[in-house]
């Protein structure tokens, strides 16, 4: 084995060890580690809420708005998966993780509902009273879920 091949092998082995160490260490729930997923979900639910608002004023189509809700649902699922990967050995950490997961779960339900209502609104004008009522209901759900997440973020010290 030449000198350069040996060096390459050493570098690759070191990288493999670092990768193993990094992947082997699960983060623990804290304001710092939860900040990323919580902000992603907060952004997602606000985007879905804006899409519903725009649909209520007939400014967007049912297809575009339901696509936004569906995309945001995907974002929340991805953030939920990240939190599931957190290691929570203490009771306090378990409580924090479970609270965040419960909040994400409420947001997912609201987003699912929003997506269904937005998809169903494709056949009718958004201005119809039935359509408006259904959209107003999902908007209220999204806002409640957003408020819950916001207060949880404040409680956990996430800015």
């Amino acid at each position: 084995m030449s000198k350069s091949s040996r060096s390459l092998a050493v570098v690759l082995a070191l990288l493999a060890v670092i990768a193993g160490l990094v992947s082997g260490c699960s983060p623990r729930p804290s304001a710092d580690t939860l900040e990323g997923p919580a902000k992603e979900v907060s952004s997602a639910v606000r985007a879905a809420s804006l899409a519903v608002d725009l649909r209520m004023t007939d400014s967007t189509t049912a297809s575009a708005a339901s696509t936004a809700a569906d995309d945001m649902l995907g974002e929340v699922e991805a953030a939920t998966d990240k939190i599931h990967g957190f290691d929570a050995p203490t009771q306090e950490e378990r409580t924090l993780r479970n609270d965040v997961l419960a909040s994400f779960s409420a947001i997912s339900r609201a987003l699912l509902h929003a997506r269904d209502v937005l998809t169903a609104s494709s056949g009718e004008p958004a201005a119809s009273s039935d359509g408006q009522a259904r959209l107003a209901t999902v908007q209220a759900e999204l806002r409640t879920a957003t408020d819950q997440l916001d207060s949880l973020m404040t409680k956990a010290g996430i800015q």
Partner: protein
Amino acid sequence: MKRLLGVALGILTAIGGFVDIGDLVTNAVVGSRFGLSLAWVVVIGVLGICLFANMSGRVAAVSGRATFEVIRERMGPRAGLANLGASFLINLMTVTAEIGGIALALQLASGVSYMLWVPFALLAVWLVIWRVKFSIMENVTGLVGLSLVVFAVALFLLKPDWGALAGQAFTPSVSGEESVGAYWYYAIALFGAAMTPYEVFFFSSGAVEEGWKVKDLVQSRINVLMGFPLGGFLSIAIAACAAVVLLPAGISVTTLSEVVLPVAQAGGQLALAVLILGIVAATFGAALETTLSSGYTLAQFFGWPWGKFRRPAAASRFHVAMMVVLLAGVAVLATGVDPILVTEYSVVFSAIALPLTYLPILIVANDPQYMGKHVNGRAVNVAGLVYLVIILVASLAAIPLMIATGAGA
């Protein structure tokens, strides 16, 4: 009159063809997170692409050969291979992102999952490359891509606080919510999006396709110097729309469906329809350009007959290479990878590969053997060297910043 129309058409297609999925997504992400505080990067990127596209077009017009062909001959197969390897991988990522972009735009229009649109996008891109004349292909997608001007219209309709926007643009700063590392990571991403390597290879090969001569240099210069900056203005309008609507609402862009929200808010369903048409045209045009660029670079490196001015049977390896690239892009999308994520990585990897693309162009444009009296002037060389330093710094900083910031998270 005919010449004037030609110039106007060239400028319009340059504007319409400037924005691709990378510009769309990166500018919207940046606008929603940093406001207009990275607008200066778009200006630097646009000046850079003007400089090197102009150089590359001049090499093609004077030598009658595409830039990559000349690089391969002038710098030898080893340097040519490094250039090919980097450019080809970036092209492949960009083709994947653009096809994903077409499919995502069609999902916004129809509500049908983008995965079901991917095969149609592939077929449409391949059919156009196979059957449609180069000039028609370029002009139609460029002109329809002009629909993206709706971003600028939407910005006016949103009645923003112009003073605040100007403040963000002229006194850039990082808000407390964001890290300095993420700011610089996105600065590099924006720079990579504006100076994507495929643009110069496509530009010079296109010059050969259209049979440019030295007398056409003035027109090409006007197209570049007016079309690209106006395209850059469009990029800033995308960021500004996001800065006005999404940033105050606490929405960080991660999907195409969020990019369109400000335009829908400003102009309603009509504006949204025009925007979706523009996104389809821009991504479709860019998918054609990147696929052709992949074919051009491969064929020019290996010395195969190439070009749409030849019948497909006379440039069979060139066409087969493009089919393989398209299929590879679709195979990547079939894994379920998020096309927006591919886009975000493609612009950063573009920045990493920039020195391999732009240094050889600068060398060739200074070689009197190919360029005769049309070699670069002193001012162009100074500007070229300054840009090479910027490109090198961006290229070296990209990976450490990507790791340190978790890809700008």
